[in-house]
């Protein structure tokens, strides 16, 4: 079964996910050579269609695409409502008319990538670079790659079986949380969701191995292999999801004390970090922190995804 689009981590079987991680290892070697180039996407046109600002993700995709020799076009389409500008349909059909082969899209509306992939407006592959609060599949893949490489080194063919991973923060509004929840489970890990009740929806809690409103109790009960901190946004405070930043960090931040108590667990964060709010500098800058590696691994992982999407119909050989 060929991977035609990457819209949601639920699109990936365990075999496909592991294959993507394995290929990413080879891609990372290319990224360390003097000539960081592969001809895989030579002559293909890839469009980065970003409706939301994002320097990090866009640059990561752009570098990945260029290292695979693709012709890259960046389209920044601000203003998402139909009344403000061109409709999604018109924008995408324009890209189809210039024979774009792959569209990498970030959009503020949940479901936009799936809608695009099923619309029939465009015949190439769609990669979801983040749609509203729904999914961010390549982030989950690079997080899984980071975890695997830190814990199992360069071992191929392996998942994340049996690892205990905590995801802490605003689960309700986090596409990173949703994508990681699905992918980590697919790879055999045990996922534990932690956050204030207002930000931890029951529907997601039931999909995890455990869920906790109390971070300290969770640390007591479970030996985490990694703790993934999510960025908290101040808009949530203004919408009364929690009363204040100091109360949030007191109960759900990765404080110095909690950092000590999680022992040698890896500290992860998709970035950008609010130092002092959801994560203390001592944790963010420690040797157990994978924050910078996650960024580095983003390029290799995305190169791997592009490589796998480029192929034709048929099983992995």
């Amino acid at each position, binding site marked *: 079964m060929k991977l035609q689009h990457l819209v949601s981590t639920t699109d990936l079987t365990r075999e496909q996910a592991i294959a993507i991680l394995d290929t990413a290892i080879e891609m990372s070697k290319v990224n360390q050579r003097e000539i960081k180039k592969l001809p895989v996407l030579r002559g293909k046109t890839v469009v980065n269609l970003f409706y939301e600002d994002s320097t990090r993700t866009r640059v990561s995709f752009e570098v990945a695409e260029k290292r695979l020799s693709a012709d890259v076009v960046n389209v920044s389409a601000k203003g998402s409502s139909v009344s403000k500008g061109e409709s999604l349909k018109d924008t995408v059909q324009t890209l189809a008319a210039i024979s774009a082969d792959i569209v990498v899209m970030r959009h503020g509306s949940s479901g936009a990538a799936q809608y695009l992939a099923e619309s029939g407006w465009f015949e190439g592959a769609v990669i979801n670079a983040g749609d509203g609060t*729904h999914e961010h599949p390549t982030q989950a893949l690079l997080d899984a790659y980071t975890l695997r490489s830190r814990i199992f080194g360069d071992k191929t063919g392996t998942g994340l079986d049996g690892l205990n991973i905590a995801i802490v923060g605003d689960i309700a509004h986090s596409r990173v949380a949703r994508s990681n929840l699905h992918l980590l489970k697919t790879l055999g890990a045990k996922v534990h969701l932690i956050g204030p009740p207002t930000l931890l929806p*029951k529907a997601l809690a039931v999909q995890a191995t455990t869920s906790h409103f109390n971070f300290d109790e969770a640390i007591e009960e479970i030996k985490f292999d990694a703790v993934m901190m999510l960025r908290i946004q101040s808009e949530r405070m203004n919408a009364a999801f929690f009363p204040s930043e100091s109360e949030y960090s007191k109960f759900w931040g990765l404080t110095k004390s909690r950092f000590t108590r999680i022992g040698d667990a890896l500290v992860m964060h998709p970035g950008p970090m609010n130092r002092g709010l959801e994560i203390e500098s001592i944790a963010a800058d420690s040797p157990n922190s994978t924050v910078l590696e996650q960024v580095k691994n983003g390029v290799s992982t995305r190169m791997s995804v592009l490589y796998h999407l480029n192929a034709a119909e048929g099983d992995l050989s």
Partner: protein
Amino acid sequence: MSFTLKNVQLEDGRITNVSVDGQHISQVGSDQHGEIIDATGLVLLPGFVDLHTHLRQPGFEKSETVSSGSAAAAVGGYTAVHPMANTMPVADNAGVVEQIQRLGEEAGLVEVQPIGAVTVGLNGSMLAELGTMNASKANVTIFSDDGKCVSDPQLMRRALTYVKAFNGVIAQHAQEPRLTENSQMNEGSVSAELGLAGWPAVAEESIIARDIMLAELTGSRLHVCHVSTAGSVEQIRLGKARGVQVTAEVTPHHLLLTEDLARSYDPVFKVNPPLRTQNDVEALRAALIDGTIDVIGTDHAPHPIESKECEWNNAAFGMLGLETAYSIAQLVLIDSGLSNWSRLAQVLSIKPADISGLTGQGQQIVAGAMANLVLVDPASVTKVTGGGQSLSENQPYLGMELPGQVVHTIFRGSFTVRDGILNGRA
């Protein structure tokens, strides 16, 4: 024109002939005169009356006009519709409601009885000239800010009290605005997975509970638009048991479709109130059968293509409904074996006409009654394709086969729809 519908079945099961002369039923019995129309296998019902529809004119003629909406209604078996006031300009004064009524008369396909807004410009803060709208040629008796909720409790109390002067009724679109800011679909496990902002059932139920208490306090009539949850049904049941003058309405789509359809992210399924769970669908069906819910109102909500062919968040709320409502009523009340034709006639015609006070509509089939009639064929099947009478195409049942078919619609003694085809059209 004179004609006799031969061998037609009435709602009580009797097979007989019904003759029409001019605008009225002349006889129910064995006599046959004028054009003899073979109605074997068809059921004769009073013409349907929709208490809740959007004709979009004035202001949004791209989506629908009074004329195209009337055509859609006639094809659906309707002889009367009540267009909601959220037009542009809003129907909050005598001038606009009289205009809408006149447009209906010019189209001449159904009786168009406008609904007036409760507040000026639907702003929720200042009462519109309800009395003047009632006294106008449009004779408005139902008032609604539908599209928006009259959320200010003081204003709702005043409105309920005020319309007692002319036996009016306030029809509430129950949606607590603060609980539904930017909501996109029903709040629950599906919305959490899909990452779409949820619309909790309690946003509807809390307003209904409050309004029932207000109606009890003021001794007024209250009508609840498009009830969508089991909890709302419970509130209404309790209110009726206490003797409150509350009537309730359900849409055809809430009797059939559930929130799982949102998984496709296809905005044709985006509607206000949102599609809910299977449990809610079953509670609504049971309530329609046992009388807790009084009528079916289509909430026919046409939208242009660009408002529906886009990302979910940016899409408009609403679905078409006039041309498919009868089939869904047949599915829920007749084909299920759980109710009967009398109940169907009640919910689609008799009770809506009663709530609105329309004379000549929703009547028993007896000699002397105005001939607003519909003949349906319950044995046939309607395959839902595009290209109906509505100017818009946001049809949620596309590709589905629904039971039954409207064969003839008779408006004031004349056929507006004959053998399924709109009169005057190819």
